[in-house]
């Protein structure tokens, strides 16, 4: 898309108000040009190649630091498309409208900020970033450069939500109605229908191995510390290492927690406390945990139980006046009838193409996405330090814990920075 057209979208889009008490929206519809938008994917490993087919866009470029992946990437569509080794080349490609980031999470922050600087709209896979500081930078850059951002998990607006067997919308309506009382406690565990994927654990000792010829390992690591290569660090198994992700919590955290944040109406804030019950964690390889408990300032809690821990009969949402169990079983008599009188949840923009064309924020954007990513990253920091942490949701800092705050924005390996 040419610059003029992109500017057109931006200026025609309405400025968005921060949500305060009675929300104020200056909605003003207009018809967008019908030209098809283009996109480029950074990272065409398993994730990047699997996320090509969403309607409304045309793939024009791919990028990867693994030559084998890159080759597979160029074969994704019949047309000839650009292939890049360096993501900055893809971002600067004039033919690319939307930058789709499908790399391991340690790159998400840098790439999102660079894409925003280039004025590109962004589609980023979860988790949003691997530190709270990087997420904050992304939020700032997206705002500063006026681009649109979509974090790619979708359960807050589409598909059946795992163990609940229903989309989130009726759950949101039920919670919003107040029928369950307050505060609420949401339990995400095997017993409520969620699996924390503990196969994403690292190995505490890796023999150095030769770097495969097709892989530019230095560029794969990028901002992460240089450690001897072993195949287990990269590609399908990187999630087991703190340097690049957060294990099962990093992988599934935003899938599972982001809808909860939305259901509880916590899109604008963060928990004030996180507690963990876990074995001591290795400095490099991610291990497992028994539970992680988040508490908001109003007493609402999100409790994660790992593996088989937790009680089998735990409600998914426990309220002071009623409970919701797995498969959306609610123990309030006649709840469906009672609920009918309450308003439906607010309508959101759930098509990113619409968001790009109308400049309205996508349902899951850099702001609420940052908040749910922050929940995941608070858990990561608490696990690594193995202690209870208190968090200031406004200053976005841990309270009285310098070591935890040093993990907020981790310095990057030179010359990378964000």
């Amino acid at each position: 898309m040419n610059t003029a057209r992109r500017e057109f979208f931006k200026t025609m889009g309405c400025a968005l108000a921060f949500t305060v008490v009675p929300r104020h929206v200056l909605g003003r519809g207009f018809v967008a040009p019908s030209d098809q938008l283009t996109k480029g994917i950074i990272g065409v490993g398993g994730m990047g190649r699997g996320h090509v087919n969403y309607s409304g866009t045309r793939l024009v470029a791919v990028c990867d630091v693994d030559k084998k992946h890159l080759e597979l990437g160029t074969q994704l569509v019949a047309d000839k498309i650009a292939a890049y080794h360096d993501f900055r080349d893809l971002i600067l490609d004039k033919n690319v409208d939307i930058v789709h980031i499908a790399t391991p999470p340690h790159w998400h922050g840098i790439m999102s900020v660079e894409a925003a600087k280039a004025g590109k709209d962004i589609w980023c896979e979860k988790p949003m970033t691997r530190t709270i500081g990087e997420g904050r930078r992304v939020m700032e850059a997206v705002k500063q450069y006026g681009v649109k951002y979509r974090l790619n998990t979708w359960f807050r607006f589409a598909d059946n939500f795992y163990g609940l067997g229903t989309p989130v919308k009726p759950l949101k309506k039920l919670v919003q109605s107040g029928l369950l009382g307050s505060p609420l406690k949401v339990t995400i565990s095997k017993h409520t229908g969620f699996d924390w994927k503990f196969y994403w654990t690292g190995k505490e000792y890796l023999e150095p191995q030769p770097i495969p010829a097709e892989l530019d390992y230095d560029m794969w690591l990028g901002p992460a510390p240089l450690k001897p290569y072993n195949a287990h660090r990269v590609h399908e198994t990187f999630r087991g290492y703190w340097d690049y992700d957060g294990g099962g919590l990093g992988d599934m955290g935003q899938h599972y927690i982001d809808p909860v944040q939305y259901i509880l109406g916590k899109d604008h804030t963060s928990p004030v406390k996180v507690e963990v019950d876990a074995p001591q964690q290795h400095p490099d390889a991610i291990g497992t945990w028994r539970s992680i408990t988040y508490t908001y300032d109003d007493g609402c809690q999100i409790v994660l139980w790992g593996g088989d821990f937790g009680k089998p009969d735990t409600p998914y949402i426990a309220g002071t006046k009623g409970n919701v169990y797995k498969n959306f079983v609610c123990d309030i008599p006649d709840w469906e009838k009672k609920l009918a009188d309450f308003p439906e949840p607010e309508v959101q923009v759930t098509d990113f193409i619409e968001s790009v064309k109308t400049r309205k924020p996508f349902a899951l954007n850099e702001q609420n996405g940052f908040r749910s990513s922050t929940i995941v990253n608070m858990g990561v920091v608490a696990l690594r330090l193995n202690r209870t942490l208190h968090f200031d949701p406004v200053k976005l800092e841990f309270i009285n814990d310098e070591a935890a705050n040093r993990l907020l924005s981790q310095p990057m390996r030179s010359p990378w920075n964000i």
Partner: protein
Amino acid sequence: MKKIYSIISVFLLCSFVALAQTPANRTTKTIVADVLAQMPAERTSQYYAQIKELSTTGEEGVSQLVSMLLPPGKGSNANVEFALSGWANYVTGEGLEAARLTTATALVKSLDKVSDPYNKAFVISLIGIAGKNEVVAKLTPYLKDASVVVSDAAAKALASINGQAPPKAPLPAKSTQQHERIAALGAQMAAKPTDALKLLQTALKDADRTYRYAALSFASEYATEAMYAALVQSLAKATLEVQLDIINWLGNECHNPAARRELTSDAAEQTLVRLVSNNELRKSIIQLWAKLGGRYIPFLAGMLNATDETLDWAYYALLTTKGDISKPIASFLRHGCIRKGNVSDPVVTPIPETNDAGKIAGLKLLAHRQADEYVYVVMDLTTSGTQEVQAAAYTALKDVVLPEKRIEFFTSEMNKLEADKQYLYYPLLASTNAPQALDIITKRFYSESGRAKEAAFQALLDWNGLEVSDEMYKIAQTTSAYSNKALDRYIQLASDDRLTGENQRLQLTQALEIARTDAQKNAALEQLGKTNSFLGLRLAAHYLDAPAVQQRAALAVMSLALSNNFSGRDIKTLLNKIVPLLNNPDADYQRQAIRKYLAEMPDEAGFVSIFNGKDLSGWKGLVENPIARAKMKPAELAKKQKSSNEQMRNDWLVENGLLVFGGKGDNICTEKQYGDFEMVVDWKLESSPDADAGIYLRGTPQVQMWNIARTDVGAEVGSGGLYNNQTNPSKPLKVADNELGTWNTFYIKMTGDRVTVLLNGELVVDNIILENYWDRSQPIFPLEQLELQAHGSKVYYRNIYVKELERPKPFELSAQEKKEGFQILFDGTNMHEWTGNFADYQLEEGTISVHPSHSFGGNLYTKKEYANFIFRFEFQLTPAANNGVGIRAPMEEGDAAYNAMEIQILDCEHPVYQDIAPYQHHGSVYGVIAAEHGAMKPAGEWNEEEIYANGDHIRVTLNGKVILDGNIREAAKNGTLDHKEHPGLFNKSGHIGFLGHGNELKFKNIRIKELKEKR
């Protein structure tokens, strides 16, 4: 896989651990080995206990652990990494500043001894966790380290420590030359696979290891039996580095049948067996053999005779060889113990028949497997075999018998033995931690003699639990041969994490009272330094003048002061005193830290002793109560004071440095009056059923002290509560009392009308309002005396210190306002006129300060209701803060913006509010009448506001500017601005409330004038 691995590593490490542990006087080496064997901790409590223990080894421990790091490819560092990173994380916790300093300094020092860049980078990353300014100078040179791995790590650590990102540079150029070369080689091999071997052999001569690895990796695709044979052959002449590369690669190739065939040939066996004698290659070859199994098993088994780490590798290799796990273990027992024969049960049967070393190894194996079903094998070995084997068998029993069966099993087995052998079971009984076991051992200690008495005492020493403390103290007080060791152990128990710092300090005080040797005093002083107790610091200071213990005392004073921010003139004097005394390798760092601390210390009196331990100076008798005293004429008061002082001298005595109340008489009072203060005091109630006392704050009862057995009066709730409160909580949060007849300690803080109490280090009263017992319609007196209550039983006090806190001047009405009839609702000293959410609305430095972190919810309301009034107050916002003044509001759930009227309080100049509706602006009658902008001062500054509410007429004046002046009835005539129902808009009267608890902001100087409605 992971599970087996961890069992093995524990097993292997156990060989480094001495069999019988005495907990006292363990060397750094033993502590390190013990902790490593238990890494990683499964539970947070274990983690903290282990790392805490590890951290006692200080610099020596750090250095030892760092020296254990193997370079990449030489083996796993997992446990060392767990230990070191756990350590670095641990010392960043609260109250561990001294340990942090030691650790960071030790890590920096250890860097010189690490040569491998990756390990260096790892240690630097730890410094990045635990280090502060003190490491910056030492770390900076590593920015220029020859290895980029090290310089990157140093840059990262320094950035972490400085709390800022490294300078921004343009993002880097792309792929490396090495990358291109490797790609070219891959292309060549792919183009002509028949040349693969030749290309590989050339590549193996290359100096670049990555390149060699890449060549081998490419070659995998084209490898044939011939290529494997050629490489095995080339091993003989290759350099050591290349030999290693080839062997490691061959290990990875074992999945290929061609490789297996070639590597199990006679020729390969010959070559490998020759090379295995080389220490550098041995481990790689053992790993290769483990994958091949078969013909190499005898070689592996043969290595089990080794006395060095080869044994560990071989043992591990055998266990990881594919197939039934019993086979390699049987092989270990058969070959490792150089004894052959038929076995029916391959694992267990050989154990009793092997030599001693084999038996001991076998016993360890059974213990690690918790092989309950083989307990008979172990039992046999407790009576047959050499002393060493018997000892090992007893040790193994602890683990072999399942935990729930232990106490019963050990007691019954013990009773089967002849009386003179029963002592052999004492250590096993001790390992159960069961109360009946402690009972048996204690009785035996007093009834037995000789060896049995020794064993009972040893079992008491080894007892892993606080319940043995009292017994240890009892033995320590005697003059027996055991008293010294008992005291050592008592001191050690006093450092247990399960005790609060204050309880540790109380125990250590007892220990120091009876300590005989300098070593004991030093040990107690060392622990004292970790208690975070102010009185611990005062106690340590007593030992600064005795040369043999002054070093430990000085370190204790330093770490207590610095870790807890203790300040004040006495502390300053003490710290200045220890600066020249310090004499240890880290003294320079410590002096630097102390000087910095002193420079930043506020100039204040701090805690001041109000009881001198000699006489009653500073104290006086009680004359009635504060209200009655205030009404007396000076002469009358003086007269009564004189007679009560005489009475006091009868009732209150100073004995052995303690202030003692005999049980009859009246309260004792401070001559001085106190407003806001902190107080610490040790107290002890006589061991009598009716024991009862208390401390009066500002002349008002009381912080309660009583015998918690007195359930008839509700004493089971514990001491420390504000007993006389009626509307505010009167019970303590938990029972934290020590046993009746022993010492307890209070920390009491009183600011404004709020009281916080810690009993023996546990929070029992959390910022609760103390009601005025003498006249409940009044708030608590702003300034009055402290009193120790007389309540009919004997009480002892010591260590009474008070720190006066600066106190805001109460707000007073101007002459004009006084004349107009304004009344004060909040003058900065109490919240007597208010009710509701006292948890989030705190009294702080003369303001009502909203702290959302407490999260109890709810608003703050005036107790009284108001109809028409002028309400004046000052407020200070934090950026984007949001609150509101509810007027004519009901005190109930619901939104006062609708069920009453809300005058908005909002930092509406903040950019996040740029798009809010006009009727949401600061000063608006929310949703009904919009206020004007522009009079608000920036967040952080104080604003003055007046709300005039007279019938339907509302006027809001902010900093002198009228920002709203309107009539609510007219405004709502055609529907409100926000199109919502406001059913409470025309309430006649109600409470005034501050609404919300989600943002930080402050209020002060609140006053009101009631009006008669004018129409």
